[in-house]
């Protein structure tokens, strides 16, 4: 998505001045910058992957249905494993996000929140 944010922009002096001090400390903490950079990068990669997989599947149906009709076994066509693969990929990509979130993002997020105290 073109709307994914760029990684942490430095605040203008004016904006920094009107933030509550605790929020400002979080914003300027290294953990916060790292959290945003890592999470945005992962979300972007996974979103692009999901869209590529799904719209690739849709476009294959639209432009090359005969491709999905190729027999891979006695009766099973390529479309069946590909279709099931898209379902499994959706679940797998979601699980990958959760794995990173549990192992990295929660820690960085807690670290960022701790920097609220001066």
């Amino acid at each position, binding site marked *: *998505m073109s*709307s*994914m*944010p760029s990684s942490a*922009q430095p*605040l203008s002096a004016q*904006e920094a001045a*009107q*933030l509550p001090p*605790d*929020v*400002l400390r*979080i*914003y300027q903490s290294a953990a*916060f910058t790292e*959290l*945003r950079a890592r*999470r945005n990068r*992962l*979300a972007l990669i*996974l*979103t692009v992957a*999901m*869209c590529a997989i*799904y*719209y690739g599947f*849709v*476009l294959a*149906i*639209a*432009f090359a*249905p*005969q491709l*999905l*009709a190729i027999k891979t*076994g*006695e*009766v*099973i*066509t390529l*479309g*069946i494993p590909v*279709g*099931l693969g*898209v*379902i*499994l990929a*959706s*679940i797998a*990509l*979601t*699980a990958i*996000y*959760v794995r990173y*979130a549990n192992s990295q993002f*929660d820690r960085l*997020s807690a670290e*960022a*929140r701790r920097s*609220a105290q001066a």
Partner: protein
Amino acid sequence: MSTPLKTLRGFGLLGALAATPAFSAALEGQAEKQPLNLTAIVMFFIFVAATLCITWWAARRTHSRADFYTAGGGITGFQNGLAIAGDYMSAASFLGISALVFGSGFDGLIYAIGFLVGWPVIMFMIAERLRNLGKFTFADVASYRLGQKPIRTLSAAGTLVTVSFYLIAQMVGAGQLIKLLFGLDYNIAVMIVGVLMIVYVTFGGMLATTWVQIIKAVLLLGGASFMAFMVMRSVGFSVDELFRSAIAAHTDGEAIMAPGKFVKDPVSAVSLGIALMFGTAGLPHILMRFFTVKDAVEARKSVLYATGLVGYFYLLTFIIGFGAIVLVGTNALYLDGAGLRGGSNMAAVHLAHAVGGDLFLGFISAVAFATILAVVAGLTLSGAAAVSHDLYANVFKRGTANDVDELRVSRYATIALGILAIGLGIAFEKQNVAFMVGLAFAVAASANFPIILLSMLWRGLTTRGAVIGGSLGLFTAVLLTVLGPAVWVKVLGHVEPIFPYDAPAIFSMTVAFIGCWLGSITDRSEQARIEAMRYGEQLVRSETGYGAAAASNH
């Protein structure tokens, strides 16, 4: 009802879109009334009795706005995942997708996949931030740093339009399916659904709505798992054997193993995909569920559980559809001169009888009824919250409404929406409402989703941009649907559509994003400058949960 294949060919792409296959099939012809099905009715009464007990229990715990809208935030990630999956596993997706698979094999899988792929997107972009920023409705998030009045009015409009179209489709589908499954009169069926849903929501709020949804989800997953198991057992647990028998049994033969007639052209195909993928991320009754959990961690868990459960469920419907080709399509007991007895939607219902006899048939029929009830309850609650929390408390009362008044208004709104739903259900009985869920997804993707996403991720979004983009998206989605084949030709009876595609989302969502962008960058107002200045604070909260409303107030 016509033969399943004939009925299925009759779908436009949008007709087949979104939960609607079942309903559109039920709706294109009038469902024929079946003899009274006593087993099903008894089982349904047991379900209703149980859910009313839950409602009574929930009512004693529902005292505040937070209780009413979000069950006090006390739902766990796993429970919420089940409830979200339940919202998604409507009677339409169960009966409709299995009917699509029964009718044309592989094509059914295309739809199932479309419904699933919105979930990862919700996870990557929305779920955690939504929980961190919002309290009761998605408008809380969209209006976090923008103008309360215009943004909440717009979000409430987006919510009510989405909910109304969805509700009409569900109510009309409910009436037709219940007539089919239970042999009850259409109007009575619609009224039973409406009244029960009003009772659940008005008294039990989100707590009752969630538990009704959870129970139903468990029953439906259990029933569908049993059916899929029995199908696989009948073919000796061999996938090859299942497909081989299906090809032998189906009139289309090997064609059922490959993409067929649904995808007409690439534009429609991608547009439909966009509506399904991003529409899911803009459905108010789904988004509202993220406020029922404690924090972002639980919100994240709920999406993973929901994605897994919904994916599993669609695998089951695929097996059930193929099983029906083998076990139902070849058995004279389930066929009449024209095709399936009772219409194409009955594939899964007949299969229930084929693998489990009268008792299991009654069980599945009751579960289908329960499914409709649970889904309309969730829809109504999200519509009521838009009226009471967004319009009444924050637009009309400018944020000064007290808890007691807002709670009262939300209950009135529930009753009003329930009565409206009954009225619309009866009014649209003879109409072809197949396009309505498709329209609901298109509006959700074009009006709700862009505002939610941009308000969270783009510093530059201003009130003016959001209002311009959101209204344009809403307007374009509705206009293009009306001018497209699903309404202009099928409902209004014109020969040629003015807009050639059934799915408008690729255009209406693009228009919405461009409108938001253009309206924002040309906004030189002082307010726009202040809104951008507030982004830093919002960002800290949305990314870390710092300062987020602790979900539970007690």
